[in-house]
């Protein structure tokens, strides 16, 4: 595995041939949903959408972790930044997300301590270097990120770091797929399942959705050739009337997934109901910190209750995340809401559908 092999997945010639193959077999009109922010970004950047035949509609589902974070979760993050002696440690993409009245970026500009970290371990390091402060890490992400944050809590316990804790706002992917299948008006014929979430949960995690709703699911990697191959596999299934689970990303994803990572994740967290932006509360779709780790739970250490703020008026994020609308159908798109002045995280994150549309759609 050298860089050369990576380049080959990006090979334009390979992609063109795959598009031709898709065109040869595609007859039925189908709507395929990608459930991964990195897929959304790759699809727009590589121009895959424009290459596909008219029979295929590509939708971007609830796969960008920042985008699905509920307004009141963002408000709690902002409240946290205002608490004396607290250093908020976060991945960078949360910074500009607007809450009801502010954003972490604004808070930082006003002198609050908000630090961007690359890894949960960097946050641990911050705690070690600032023993007189309380470092709170914002746990945002899916099954790929949650084990890394769980590992940092286990490490904090081991090192007896008392000034480190996590505010968990994690989300789980399979429960969201179930909700999409049950939601009124939603029409999805196949799922392009997220590559690195599947590294952890295994392709087998989608089997219940495939079987219960008779919908094809294909796990896909992130390179254009991977995504096109996944689309080809889905179209082939749909043309044949099949509904199977397939794995395009065999070089990273197994049926069982990464058991050790899951074990660490569930040692620290347990499933809980969680609020999703624009969708609402989904049972068992989040992760809360187990009782045994109460002393590392920001919700136990601080009062983080916030008024039940409404999501921004007019914002169609929820409908977009469910594949019911495209960004240009949002009345605020490009008029009020732009990457410079985002109304919602879908316009902030580089993985957000609205931001991708704004950047690449002409």
């Amino acid at each position, binding site marked *: *595995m050298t*860089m050369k*092999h*990576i380049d*080959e*997945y990006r090979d334009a010639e*390979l992609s063109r*041939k*795959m598009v031709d*193959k898709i065109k040869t077999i595609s007859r039925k009109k189908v709507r395929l949903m990608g459930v991964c*922010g*990195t897929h959304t970004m790759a699809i727009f950047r590589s121009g895959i959408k424009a290459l596909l035949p008219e029979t295929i509609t590509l939708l971007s589902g609830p796969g960008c*972790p920042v985008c699905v974070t509920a307004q009141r979760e963002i408000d709690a993050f902002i409240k946290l930044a205002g608490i004396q002696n607290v250093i908020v440690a976060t*991945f960078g*993409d949360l910074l500009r997300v607007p809450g009801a009245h502010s954003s972490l970026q604004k808070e930082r500009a006003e002198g609050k301590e908000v630090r961007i970290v*690359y*890894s*949960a*371990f*960097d946050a641990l390091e911050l705690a070690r270097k600032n023993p007189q402060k309380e470092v709170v890490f914002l746990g945002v*992400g899916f099954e*790929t*990120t949650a*084990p*890394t944050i769980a*590992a940092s809590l*286990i*490490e904090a316990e081991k090192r007896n770091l008392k000034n480190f804790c996590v505010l968990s706002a994690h989300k789980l992917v399979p429960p969201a797929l179930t909700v999409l299948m049950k939601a009124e008006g939603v029409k999805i014929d196949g799922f392009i399942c997220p*590559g*690195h979430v599947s*590294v*952890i949960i295994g392709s087998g995690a989608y089997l219940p959705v495939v079987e219960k709703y008779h919908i094809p699911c294909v796990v896909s*990697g*992130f*390179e254009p*050739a*991977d995504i096109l*191959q996944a689309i*080809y596999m889905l179209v082939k299934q749909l043309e044949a009337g099949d509904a199977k689970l397939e794995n395009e*990303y*065999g*070089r*990273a*994803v197994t049926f069982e997934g*990464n058991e*050790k*990572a899951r074990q*660490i994740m569930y040692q620290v967290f347990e499933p809980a109901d969680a609020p999703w932006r624009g969708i609402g509360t989904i049972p068992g779709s989040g992760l809360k910190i187990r009782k045994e780790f109460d002393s590392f739970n920001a919700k136990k250490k601080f009062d983080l209750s916030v008024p039940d703020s409404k999501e921004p008026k007019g914002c169609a994020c929820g409908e977009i995340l469910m594949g019911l609308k495209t960004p240009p159908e949002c009345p605020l798109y490009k008029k009020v809401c732009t990457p410079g002045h985002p109304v919602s995280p879908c316009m902030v994150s580089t*993985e957000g559908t609205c931001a991708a549309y704004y950047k690449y759609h002409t």
Partner: protein
Amino acid sequence: MYLAIPAKVTKIDGEMATIDVGGVTRSASLMLLTDVAVGDYVIVHAGFAIHKVDPEEAQESLKLLRELATAE
């Protein structure tokens, strides 16, 4: 958000590894993986190695993509 490029493990010190990502040196935790050795390729997410890439599997999937693309 996710790095699709596998990184090569160049050094291991306890549960931490030094990795090479296309020429850039970084460190990554091995807490979430078992049986990683120097010379292995791993997929890294937010500072943690989350999957060991089997080089044969990587070659195989690439070959498959090529065959599918060229098959009539």
